[in-house]
């Protein structure tokens, strides 16, 4: 987390712009959804739909599209700036680090970090980090907005969500340990290869080719075992969370439908909930994979020394 804080601090202006863009994009989306619900209410209530109302709806439609584009653009830009800071920070650290006596192992460790942890953290920052951040942000804002619309219906969505979150918390802890051990095995496997190359004279004179091959095979098998276990647990937890994440929608349809029939709420309110519940359920459905992805990212990041 220290490294992540450092990267965020170094790029605080662009990260701030990206966060603002995400806020405006989400607010615009919610207001637009609210007006769509209002349109449905007017149609059902056979109320006059004036030109001013349509103009406001159209205005929010355009602003929604524009802010979504800006959100994506600034999110990607801030992510690339952070990824650049990470790469440069690693290079600076390497250059300043005193040369270790055991040159061979140090070089192989540095190469291993560069080709594994650094490359993966870099890819995550560039491709996933702000998308995950944006989706999580959308989920939080949607919850607040829905609470302002109807508390009972929001609780119908939130209560199963809380149960799912407890499950996600448990599964992510379990997955974190598995991910970390898989990463360790991968690094060890790569280190054998890089060391065998850098220690080529010793390997040749002391006839260590069979030893290196054997060590690599051993490390490969150990990594395969961990990776398979990792894949199985991910599949299990993600399948379960996928099933659980559908429960809120079913409850919303049952409770919301009943409330509309009883005329406790208008159809427009239910439409707003049906539109925005995706922001919640999608966030929840993807939470395990996001969290495990984020765990891999922070594990990778913690292994990269930066300045």
């Amino acid at each position, binding site marked *: 987390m220290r490294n992540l804080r450092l990267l965020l601090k170094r790029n605080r202006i662009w990260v701030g712009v990206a966060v603002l863009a995400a806020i405006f994009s989400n607010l615009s989306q919610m207001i637009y959804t609210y007006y769509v619900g209002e349109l449905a209410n007017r149609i059902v209530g056979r109320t006059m739909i004036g030109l001013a109302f349509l103009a406001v709806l159209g205005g929010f439609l355009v602003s929604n599209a524009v802010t979504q584009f800006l959100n994506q653009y600034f999110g990607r830009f801030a992510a690339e700036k952070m990824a650049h800071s990470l790469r440069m920070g690693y290079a600076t650290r390497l250059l300043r680090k005193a040369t*270790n006596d055991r040159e*061979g192992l140090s070089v192989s460790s540095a190469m291993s970090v560069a080709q594994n942890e650094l490359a993966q953290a870099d890819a995550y920052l560039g491709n996933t980090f702000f998308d995950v951040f944006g989706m999580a942000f959308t989920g939080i804002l949607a919850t607040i907005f829905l609470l302002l619309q109807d508390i009972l219906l929001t609780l119908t969505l939130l209560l199963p969500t809380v149960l799912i979150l407890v499950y996600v918390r448990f599964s992510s802890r379990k997955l974190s340990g598995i991910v970390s051990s898989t990463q360790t095995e991968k690094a060890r496997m790569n280190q*054998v290869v890089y060391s065998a190359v850098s220690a080529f004279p*010793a*390997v040749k*004179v002391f006839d260590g080719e069979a*030893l290196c091959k054997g060590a690599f095979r051993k490390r490969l098998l150990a990594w395969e075992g961990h990776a398979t276990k990792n894949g199985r647990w991910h599949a299990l937890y993600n399948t379960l969370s996928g099933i659980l994440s559908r429960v809120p929608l079913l409850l919303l349809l049952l409770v919301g439908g009943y409330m509309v029939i009883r005329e406790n709420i208008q159809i427009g309110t239910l439409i707003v909930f049906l539109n925005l519940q995706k922001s919640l359920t999608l966030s929840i459905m993807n939470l395990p994979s996001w969290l495990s992805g984020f765990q891999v990212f922070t594990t990778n990041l913690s292994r990269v020394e930066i300045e």
Partner: protein
Amino acid sequence: MIELKNVAFTYQEKIVFQELSLKVEKGQKVGIVGESGCGKSTLLRLIAGLYRPAEGGVTVDGENDPEKISQKVSIVLQTPMLLPLTIRENITMGHAFSEEWIRQVCAASNLTKWIETLPNGIDTYLGDRADELSGGQAQRIAIARAMCKNAQVLLLDEPTSALDGENAAAVLEALDHFGEDKTVLHVTHRPEHLVGYDRILRMEGGKLLEANASCAWRAVSL
């Protein structure tokens, strides 16, 4: 016996040697000195079969196939070149040696005391202890590896360059003792490490000069 006949060697289009010849009798101790980059290390690597000469030939005990020459020599390089495996695997390089022999080479290379402090002893995995291993400990493992192979030809390429004075003296003493009945070629910047050697050669301009053929140099260097 080691013999180089009219050896030529180029590295990245730069001529390192031309018509270089050398004969080292079995059991002789030969020291090689010279400026940095003059080709001393390259010479040892040629003899070890790690490089192939562009012209001429290298023979070790009558063998001229580089693959087979590698089997006849042991080498200790400036950098220990350890693998991220256990101490035992780094010493034996995966070959079967008796426990008694491994114990002897560890004792001869001053490793025993340190190994006894490790939780898994000689089976300690080195890859996870990268920051805990000193240059001296790493180089002593490399020396133990060379001793363990027990080849008749021992090539030493500045084996103490990364060590402090105390460590260097201990390592040199161990190597002198181990190399007593072996043919030794020792490359160094420090001629005082070659006291007691049968011959001292200076490499200059791609040629090897006998020290006794250049008394003035010997007086200055020693």
